[in-house]
């Protein structure tokens, strides 16, 4: 009934990749916040959402995400255009919002991973944790 099927493994791989992406995104945000007053600074962002969109369009329901499709998705940090002269405060606020959002997303993924792991260990241990 419950086994580490291909589908389960793919879900786990998905969650791991999303966690990696969130950790990398934090670095980009932290870098942007450290360079609020740097001259000629080019803000950094994570390239992941767009890759996910492509993945989402390629598949729809459970089981349709193939390992090859998953392997194509690789989060990376990209550097944007030089920061336009303007309100530093606004840009800082935007980054702070992203910071919180990312931290919550990371922790929800961790929790989801943990709960799944508990179910698997129940299966392995015949109902004992």
């Amino acid at each position, binding site marked *: 009934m419950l086994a580490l099927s291909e589908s389960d493994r793919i879900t786990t791989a*998905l969650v791991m990749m999303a966690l990696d992406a969130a950790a990398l995104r934090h670095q980009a945000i932290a870098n942007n916040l450290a360079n609020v007053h740097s001259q000629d600074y080019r803000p950094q962002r994570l390239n992941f959402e767009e890759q*996910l969109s492509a993945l989402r369009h390629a598949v729809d329901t459970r089981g349709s995400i193939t390992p090859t499709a998953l392997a194509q998705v690789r989060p990376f940090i990209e550097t944007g255009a030089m920061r336009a002269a303007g309100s530093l405060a606004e840009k800082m606020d935007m980054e702070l919002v992203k910071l919180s959002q990312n931290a919550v997303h990371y922790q*929800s993924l961790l929790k989801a991973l943990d*709960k799944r792991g508990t*179910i698997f260990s*129940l299966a392995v241990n015949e109902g004992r944790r």
Partner: protein
Amino acid sequence: MNVPSVDFLPLGAEGAYATKSKPGSAGDFAHWLDQEFTEVNDKLNQADDLVRKLTLGEVDNVHHVMIALDQARISFQLLTQVRNKLLEGYQEILRMSV
């Protein structure tokens, strides 16, 4: 600010257990057990699906994912306990000297 309400999943989980008929004869029990297996499997699949949605950023309410995972786990635990008790009973019968 739009705060989404904490509503339960549309799994019909509360209704499912309440309206389940109690097993009478052996045939009913086997049928019931079969039903349980299917249901637990469905819950597990649903939870897994929601986790994937969370990863892809398609989930509005994170608590739905957490609740689904918990429900899946608890149903699975229940089923495992039933299976353990059945095995115990079977082994006890085997131990009986004729």
